[in-house]
């Protein structure tokens, strides 16, 4: 074990609003939602109708093109509303929760005594499968694929991310069982776990542990995969977050679909940033109640680099472990006072264009959602490379996607990346190019081409 990896490229964006390490149960929320939009490329086929009674663990919808992958209700209650968007696309399946959670019983099992095929079927049936994602493409893992390895993200390095050790407190047994399950699924292939060098939560776990140090995006599975076991064309790697490994473990040990999660409420607009224990899909209003400073706020499910914009009564995303609230930046800024010509003592920049790069590393900044400039063609070079810890040429890859050159995309390494790996590039871009969107488009193109 203990293979040390040091990431040098990248950057920690030091924002105000780190969550205090206190855990609270929020005021009860009675509204939950499972959002098909959280799962990229999913075409949901509804099972539950509005008004149906469901138990926690009953199927809400399944994947039309892979009907073994089921998406289950996180709580018991009544299907309140199916929210649809353009072309009747399903955006949310909302459940009004009962006062007391009623679980469907899947039966307690021990992973190590099961065959890979049985375990796979059990997890699929129990709705746990979507917790596992795959690379390439950063989508829900295809149950028919055989991964060459499985990567567990033992920490998150994105801005204001929850502390990897803190969220795993009290989950050691569940994690162990979940890990045992992954080992069965891996079928002899390695299961890697990336942790911070000072991490204590995973002492003595039976996996290939890698100590990863360095700035964000060190915690992104894509980065760790690239440094440990890079993906070549035709290969598949599964990824999963440590908390979700524990969820799989809990499911196996209790037979209940009980998707709890410790979520960090963070950001400059939050009065008291701290941790909450909630169930996946929970309405965030119970957490945000009395916590948001004023109306000029953007609430994000997830982190500021890759999260989804939600409203104050929106829902926690399926893969998200934090809620972030930052100020909106709609106010125009006068050039001399705080625009582009200002001294900029409050402006954080990865470039050295503002003097803030000389400030001590402990200084934290309050950044708003202003794009700080307008769309331009690529002009400045070398910016992406500084924050992109892959042996891949990011700008060239992005350009090959823009011109839709599939051959080049393959050669330049599109199989190894996910949009989140480009989040810092997008943040740093002088020309304000929406890199993550472009990468997603490229992945979709490749997926279509080879399916």
């Amino acid at each position: 074990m203990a293979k040390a990896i040091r990431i040098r490229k990248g950057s920690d964006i030091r924002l105000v609003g780190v969550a205090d390490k206190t855990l609270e149960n929020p005021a009860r929320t009675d509204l939950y939602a499972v959002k098909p939009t959280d799962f990229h490329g999913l075409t949901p086929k509804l099972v539950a109708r509005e008004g149906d009674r469901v138990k926690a663990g009953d199927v809400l919808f399944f994947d039309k093109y892979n009907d073994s992958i089921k998406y289950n209700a996180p709580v018991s209650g009544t299907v309140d509303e199916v929210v649809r968007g353009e072309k009747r696309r399903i955006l949310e399946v909302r459940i009004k929760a009962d006062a007391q959670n009623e679980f469907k019983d899947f039966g307690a099992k021990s992973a190590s005594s099961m065959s890979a095929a049985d375990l796979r079927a059990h997890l699929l049936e129990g709705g746990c499968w979507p917790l596992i994602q795959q690379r390439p493409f950063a989508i829900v893992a295809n149950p028919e694929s055989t991964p060459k390895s499985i990567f567990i993200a033992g920490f998150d390095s994105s801005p204001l991310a929850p502390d990897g050790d803190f969220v795993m407190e009290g989950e050691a047994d569940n994690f162990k069982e979940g890990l045992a399950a992954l080992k069965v699924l891996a079928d002899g292939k390695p299961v890697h776990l990336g942790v911070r060098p000072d991490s204590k939560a995973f002492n003595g776990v039976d996996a290939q542990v890698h100590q990863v140090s360095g700035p964000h995006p060190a915690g992104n599975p894509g980065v760790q995969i690239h440094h440990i076991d890079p993906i070549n064309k035709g290969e598949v790697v599964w990824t999963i977050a440590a908390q979700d490994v524990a969820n799989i473990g809990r499911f196996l040990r209790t037979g209940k679909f009980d998707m709890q999660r410790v979520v960090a409420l963070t950001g400059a607009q939050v009065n008291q940033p701290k941790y909450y224990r909630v169930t996946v899909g929970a309405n965030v209003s119970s957490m945000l109640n009395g916590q948001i400073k004023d109306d000029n706020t953007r609430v994000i499910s997830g982190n500021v680099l890759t999260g989804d914009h939600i409203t104050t009564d929106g829902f926690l995303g399926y893969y998200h472990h934090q809620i972030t609230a930052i100020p909106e930046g709609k106010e125009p800024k006068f050039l001399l006072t705080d625009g582009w010509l200002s001294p900029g003592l409050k402006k954080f920049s990865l470039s050295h264009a503002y003097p803030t790069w000389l400030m001590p590393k402990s200084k934290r900044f309050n950044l708003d959602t202003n794009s700080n400039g307008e769309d331009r063609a690529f002009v400045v070079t070398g910016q992406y490379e500084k924050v992109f810890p892959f042996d891949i040429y990011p700008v060239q890859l992005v350009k090959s996607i823009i011109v839709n050159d599939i051959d080049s995309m393959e050669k330049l390494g599109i199989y190894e990346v996910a949009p989140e790996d480009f989040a810092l590039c997008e943040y740093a871009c002088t020309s304000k190019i929406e890199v993550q969107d472009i990468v997603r488009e490229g992945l979709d193109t490749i997926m279509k081409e080879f399916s």
Partner: protein
Amino acid sequence: MKALHNFLEKKVKPNFVEGGKLSRFWVVYDSLETFAFTPGHVTKKGAHIRDSIDLKRTMFLVIVAMVPALLFGMWNVGHQYYLSIGEITTADPYSAMLWEKFQVGLVKTLPLIVVSYGVGLGIEFIFAGLRKHSINEGFLVSGMLIPLIMPVDVPLWMVAVATAFAVIIGKEVFGGTGMNILNVALTARAFLFFAYPKQMSGEIWIHDVAASATNGMLADGYTGATALGHLANTVGKPVDGEVAGSVMGMFGDAGMYSFMDSFLGLIPGCIGETSALAILIGAGILIWTGIGSWRIMLSFLIGGLAMGAIFNAFGANAYMTLPAVHQIVIGGFMFGMVFMATDPVTAAQTNTGKLIYGFFGGFFSIMIRVFNPAYPEGVMMAILFMNVMAPMIDHYVIQANIKRRMKRTALATAAA
């Protein structure tokens, strides 16, 4: 400032939007408003926060970096003028008449800047209007670079024509800022060099040399050529001949092109290019702020020194015997290295590519200068040449990366 913004938003803007009286000039209004007020555009998804840097700030910092060269250039224009008419050969030539010298330079330089910006931005506005996109900031830098690489007595109409050529043919036909293949300012310079060779050579480097000569004001023996012009005369002549002797004498410690004078910039030349010191201050600003690529600058310098050292080793003519360190402080070498070669759009884009690009840029600068006296300004030719080569350099750098990855795939397949 809120009041001003409200006034713009409510009273002025409606005239310019679709259907307003002045809607044809929307681009002009938009660019001025976004100049004064960073627009309240917010992110929609993806990265919800964005870096504070934008293209305006980037370009502005480049202009800041050019200020030392500009100010020194203005002073030096006057300094060279008074030298030419023999007014300041006295004991203390530098501190005397500081303001008078600067004034001469200001009067000569300001019109060049105005013409360059006026013509360039005018064309940018027209193209932005036609294409219905906002004005790009690229010309803010090009507009300042162009006057800095002009001889002081260049006719204004020639600057206007060259700027128009550079912006239209050098940039806009390729799609505007970020899409051009050749450095815009150098395109302007090269255009003048080839279109008006007669007017671009001779006595235009020092203000009013020709007029002073006819009035009998010119100091004895003053010629008005640049250091490179003098050096070019030695090519093809014996190293120990009379011509070489007199020219190389000018580059000796007591000559007018001594190393120190060349480094400080007290010699004739294009307005902004003479002072290596002022340019190095600019380089410091560019590197410190991270705007300019230190890789290109460093390898460009090494390339120039390497070629200079090779020439020194051969020493086949007097030009080749000029020490390599002296080579790089005369002519446009330093200016090209700091402000032209580092142009991110036309330079190589990969880090390895930048090192190769810079090295050969410097290498060819000195080579062209010495081998081809018809083009005394080798830097311009070398950088334009390397601009054309940059995509190829990047191509091979990227191919190496691809090959490395392919090899990995092959290994994985073999192991499976």
